[in-house]
């Protein structure tokens, strides 16, 4: 904690510390443009003021993972020493339910390695929380697929980062493609609601049609998401992030496949002139946030930088962090920085702050994948 400073000029209702690097970056990005007139449509005017609770919380419930993807956004592998206990996790579910969070998106690590996962899913069911579990699929067995039917509503995302064994396994590890397909098969056999989740890379781009076919073959939807340079993703960013030309072709492909989900992660492509479905702005710290295994709370799953830790559940309640964190307060009021004056800002809102941070340690710049660059 010695590296942190308390920023004392904020309103007394704001709590916590803000790292000097984060403070500097947020201040460089400026303050938001004047509020849009009431007649203007769009979700940003509702989100910017901060909601009483997130709409969705991404909860990386453990860092333990039985595979080691080269682009893992949270650099997962081994279980971390201060991961939340099952008792703490159950209390957190209650708090999220009390705040009327709509959905919890469980990730990791591999959620099925977390010892308390079954109790946590049970508590979510009791409290009426919608659950989505993002899994690598390799630990799904017939017995587990059946047992999971007792939880409702529960959705699964099974990761495939290529439509072929060669492409997928070059990212996710040897043999993972076959094991993930087996997991999909077992979940589909029990009629679970499924999506195949795939991070778009310059290699998987050529296999989008194949990925779509695989998803359809399991009665699943395909969900394509944007690669971010967080976690181990920083190490492979230059090699894997799609080219500008691929992004242009991808938008055409998406318009031809309107049933493909995108997690609202490609809104930076709106600047090409065709608005994609979903939110057209970053939902970090406004519509969503990320809870990490050791209780750290970050603006989103892709922004797991120590400088941007809003608080920790070992010492604060989630409600306190969400509603009073100084970091979140600053984040929600972030300005447009270098995008100020750009004619496309209203449709892309400057792109992904996490990508800016991890590539250039700045928030005031354009998205490194800005399609107008």
């Amino acid at each position, binding site marked *: 904690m010695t590296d942190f400073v308390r920023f004392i000029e904020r309103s007394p209702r704001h709590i916590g510390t803000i790292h000097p690097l984060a403070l500097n970056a947020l201040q460089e990005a400026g303050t938001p443009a004047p509020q849009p007139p009431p007649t203007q449509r769009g979700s940003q005017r*509702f989100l910017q*003021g901060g909601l*009483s609770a997130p*709409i969705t919380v991404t909860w990386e419930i453990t860092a333990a993972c039985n595979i080691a993807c080269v682009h893992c956004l949270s650099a997962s592998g081994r279980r971390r020493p201060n991961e939340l206990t099952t008792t703490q996790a159950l209390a957190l579910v209650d708090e999220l339910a009390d705040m009327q969070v*709509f*959905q919890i998106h469980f990730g990791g690590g591999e959620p099925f390695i977390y010892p308390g996962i079954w109790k946590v899913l049970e508590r979510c069911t009791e409290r009426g929380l*919608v659950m989505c579990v993002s899994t690598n699929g390799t630990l799904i067995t017939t017995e587990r697929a059946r047992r999971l039917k007792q939880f409702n*509503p529960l959705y699964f995302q099974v990761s495939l980062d290529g439509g072929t064994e060669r492409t997928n396994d070059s990212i996710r590890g040897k043999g993972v493609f076959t094991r993930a397909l087996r997991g999909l098969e077992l979940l589909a056999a029990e009629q679970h609601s499924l999506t195949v989740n795939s991070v778009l890379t310059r290699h998987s781009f050529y296999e989008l049609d194949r990925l779509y076919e695989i998803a359809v073959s399991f009665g699943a939807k395909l*969900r394509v998401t944007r690669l971010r340079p967080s976690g181990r993703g920083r190490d492979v960013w230059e090699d894997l992030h799609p080219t500008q030309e691929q992004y242009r072709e991808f938008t055409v492909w998406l318009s031809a496949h309107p049933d493909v989900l995108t*997690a609202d992660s490609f809104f930076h492509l709106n600047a090409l002139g065709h608005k994609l479905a979903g939110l057209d702005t970053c939902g970090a710290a406004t519509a969503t946030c990320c809870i990490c295994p050791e209780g750290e709370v970050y603006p989103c799953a892709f922004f797991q930088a120590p400088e941007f830790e809003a608080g920790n559940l070992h010492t604060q309640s989630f409600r306190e962090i969400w509603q009073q964190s100084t970091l979140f307060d600053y984040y929600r009021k972030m300005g447009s920085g270098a995008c100020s004056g750009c004619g496309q800002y209203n449709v892309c809102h400057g792109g992904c702050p996490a990508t800016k941070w991890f590539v250039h340690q700045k928030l005031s710049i354009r998205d490194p994948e800005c399609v107008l660059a």
Partner: protein
Amino acid sequence: MPQPSTAYRLMPEVKIRRESFGGILYKYGCADRGALSFINSPQLIDLLIESQQQYDGNVSAAIAHRRYSESSKQKLYAALDNLIERGYIQQEI
């Protein structure tokens, strides 16, 4: 406008939360994180929550209980028709 025998009913998958500007409607099971709408009318949000909590999702029953003026009803039904289009409400005959 509804026919006399038509009831407006919230879809069972819809969750509602009050916010300072009005509230949020969230319908799970149909997209990444469900469909989502920001409603900037606290009165409409109150009505929908009352429908869900006291009338088993029957919005028409909640409207009848509240005794709106005819002009208010016209506006209300226009808003409800919009929510039908977005998949939050269904009409039952």
